[in-house]
């Protein structure tokens, strides 16, 4: 090596060490806490792989499923969905409803402590709910609430403007309604350093370690022996194929989703369990009813008729789904409405309807996003199926941010997406199909449907309420406000040494009862 070469290498090395040093400094601020996590006995730390990156860890502000996968295990809600999706006690041990159905009184569990050691009091619940309302994102769920109060440390009283049979689902259906301590909001750390009452407490978050949680020994189910795990590490593996390989090689214990085409082979693999339950999610497409000719229900119906849902489900989910012409899956026995007016791939019927509507040479642009790749597959299959009735489909595949922008501005012919984790029929239909609904981007307005959905919100008699929603659903399906496709199964997969974990119908990821053998 010549002197000059050596010189060049030295220059390069100085540059590199400089930058590496700068980097090292930055990362050390972060990993002080992580060190303790690493020292925990590695054998009972579960490594869970997520497909996408959580944004912030403030349960009231985030809308990212990846964040909720983590926060599910950190926070508690007043009550929570049980495995059968009925609401069971959580922070509230019991509750009472007044005879006029307008006052709900919740009795809090004794001795629950936040991870910072402070005891949970009723004021925390009121504070958290008020924050949810103020933050706006989920505030609409409190639409029926008149006022909230904490008469003593263990009682929360919620007064309603009108009866609300689904109040429990509204205020505790998912961790977006989590009960948080005021102090972490006030010191601004809630987004980066969540403190809850849940089975695991937050330790650290860094790009290389992921999100580290450790056991909360003071958890209110500690006397049952929960949680069993010493800790959880959530790592982010964006590529589905890599994530799958990581599970197979044992680098991670659990993954949040399995590419549909791999379910079969994975389930057959020894040492790996594929958890698969019919889910509350549904996939659909919607036509822009503010644009001709999609304002004509006959046109929409024609499209609903022309498609073959079984083929779409098979194509996009490799059979891990159930075709459905309404939103609510059969697994949600309390609310399932068996209604299927459209014959699959009814080309003649569809053509006749289009002719009636006086529509020919129809061309539709479908808004889809590769960020949810199944929408792209669905659109391609739909395109082929609609070609049979002479409808041309142009696919517009954009990133999800653009997708949201176009949808919000109403700049689309049709969009495809899915809804996840709904439980109550009000969640399935109101915001989407009520003419004033917050998600009614397709511009559906049917006064009868509005009336039925409004009535459903206040009907306290279960049977009567169910009848209301069945009627509403029939109208929605007949008008093809949404054209429902199928309910996919919820799928997680984990290694054989993970015990006590079950995939849930509402897609919540709960490790409280899990253990590593």
């Amino acid at each position, binding site marked *: 090596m010549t002197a000059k070469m050596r010189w060049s290498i030295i220059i390069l090395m100085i540059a590199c060490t400089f930058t590496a040093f700068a980097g090292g400094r930055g990362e050390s601020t972060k990993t002080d806490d992580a060190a303790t996590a690493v020292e925990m006995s590695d054998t009972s730390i579960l490594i869970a792989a997520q497909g996408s990156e959580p944004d912030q860890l403030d349960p009231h502000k985030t809308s990212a499923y990846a964040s909720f996968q983590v926060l599910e295990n950190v926070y508690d809600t007043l009550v929570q969905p049980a495995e059968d999706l009925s609401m069971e006690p959580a922070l509230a041990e019991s509750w009472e409803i007044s005879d006029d159905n307008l006052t709900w009184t919740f009795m809090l569990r004794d001795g629950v402590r936040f991870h910072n050691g402070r005891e949970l009091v009723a004021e925390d619940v009121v504070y958290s709910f008020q924050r949810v309302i103020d933050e706006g994102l989920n505030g609409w769920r409190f639409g029926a609430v008149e006022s909230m109060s904490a008469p003593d440390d263990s009682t929360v009283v919620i007064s309603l403007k009108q009866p609300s049979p689904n109040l429990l689902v509204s205020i505790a259906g998912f961790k977006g309604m989590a009960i948080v301590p005021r102090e972490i909001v006030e010191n601004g750390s809630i987004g980066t350093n969540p403190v809850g009452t849940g089975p695991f407490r937050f330790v650290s978050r860094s790009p290389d370690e992921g999100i580290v949680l450790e056991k909360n020994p003071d958890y209110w189910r500690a006397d049952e022996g929960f949680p069993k795990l010493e800790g959880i590490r959530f790592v982010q593996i964006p590529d*589905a*194929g890599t994530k799958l390989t990581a599970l197979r090689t044992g680098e991670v214990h659990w993954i949040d989703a399995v*590419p549909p*085409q*791999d379910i079969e*082979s994975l389930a057959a693999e020894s040492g790996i369990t594929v958890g698969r339950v019919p889910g509350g999610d549904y996939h659909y497409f919607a036509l822009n009813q503010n644009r001709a000719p999609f304002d004509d229900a006959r046109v929409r119906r024609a499209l609903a008729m022309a498609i073959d849902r079984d*083929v779409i489900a*098979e*194509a996009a989910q490799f059979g891990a789904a159930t075709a459905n012409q309404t939103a609510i899956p059969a697994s949600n026995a309390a609310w399932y409405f068996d209604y299927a007016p459209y014959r699959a791939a009814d080309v003649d019927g569809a053509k006749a309807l289009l002719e009636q509507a006086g529509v020919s040479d129809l061309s539709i642009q479908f808004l889809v*996003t*590769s*960020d949810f*790749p199944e929408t*792209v*597959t669905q*659109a*391609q*299959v739909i*395109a*082929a199926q609609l*070609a049979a009735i002479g409808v041309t489909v*142009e*696919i*517009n*595949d*954009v*990133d999800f*941010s*653009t997708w949201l922008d176009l949808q919000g501005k109403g700049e689309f012919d049709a969009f495809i997406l899915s809804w996840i984790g709904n439980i109550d029929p009000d969640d399935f239909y109101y915001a989407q199909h009520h003419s004033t609904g917050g998600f009614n981007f397709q511009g559906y307005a049917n006064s009868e449907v509005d009336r039925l959905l409004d009535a459903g919100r206040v009907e306290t008699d279960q049977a009567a309420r169910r009848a209301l929603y069945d009627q509403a659903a029939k109208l929605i399906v007949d008008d093809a406000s949404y054209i429902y496709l199928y309910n996919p199964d919820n799928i997680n997969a984990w290694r054989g040494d993970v015990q006590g974990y079950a995939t849930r119908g509402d897609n919540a990821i709960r490790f409280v009862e899990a253990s590593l053998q």
Partner: protein
Amino acid sequence: MNEKPTSRTRETLQILLANRLAVVGLCVLALLVVVGVIGEAVAPYGINDIDIANRLTGPSGAHWFGTDELGRDVFTRVLVAARVSLQVGFIAVGFALAVGVPVGLVAGYYRGTIDAVLMRIMDVLFSFPAILLAIAILAVLGPGIGNAMIAIGLVYTPIFARITRGSVLVVSEEVYIRAARSLGARDGRIILRHILPNVLAPIIVQTTLSLAFAILSEAALSFLGLGVQPPNPAWGRMLAEGRNFFQQAPWMGIFPGVAILVTVVAFNFVGDGLRDALDPKQKSVIESRGQSV
């Protein structure tokens, strides 16, 4: 002077045609162009003939390259994708040429402030991470093959500007340019008639290499979900989709992958051949030229 370019072109062509690899490359490219033009007409199936019952079946008499996850014929899609992929390459690089070369010519010829300003702008483009630039441009313009081509083209623009400018700086010093200038020829005429023909060699070589890279860029953008819109097939998009099925249906990725490989290698062969044929430096070294490269 008028004769010179033609005789040089002929000489270049002769050297190029004597290069076996370059000839192979040219033949492959010619074949690809033919496939691009008539591919859709001769393809055995339609590009969006979905047949879920026969999805992910291996190569057979009915489906030479097998079928993909929707039961579409991979052979058909590879054929039709030739046009899309070549279009991406040609239009993207055409865009880069159309912008980069004039910028380089003007900057190199006039020098001074205009040079400094133009080249700083090119520096900005160049120091921008390529794939992010492409992604951002696509986000602004909206996805789609046309915009993808512009985005990729813009990424390659500064390279052409730099190469052109560098050659112009050298050529401008030549006696005949100075003579033309001192005789009062118009700038535009000097640039187009005298300078441009003499800086073409490196530009042509860079063009073939960039064509190869542009086709690969389409693949990378497709991987990130920003390439050609479905159901239109492009090799990169097919490859990106095929990777998820590598274990169930390797043919989904292998055939478009091989198509990319062959195309890129063909462009590189032609590019290398052109460089040998056009680069006067290598021509002068006759002593050790016996070993052909």
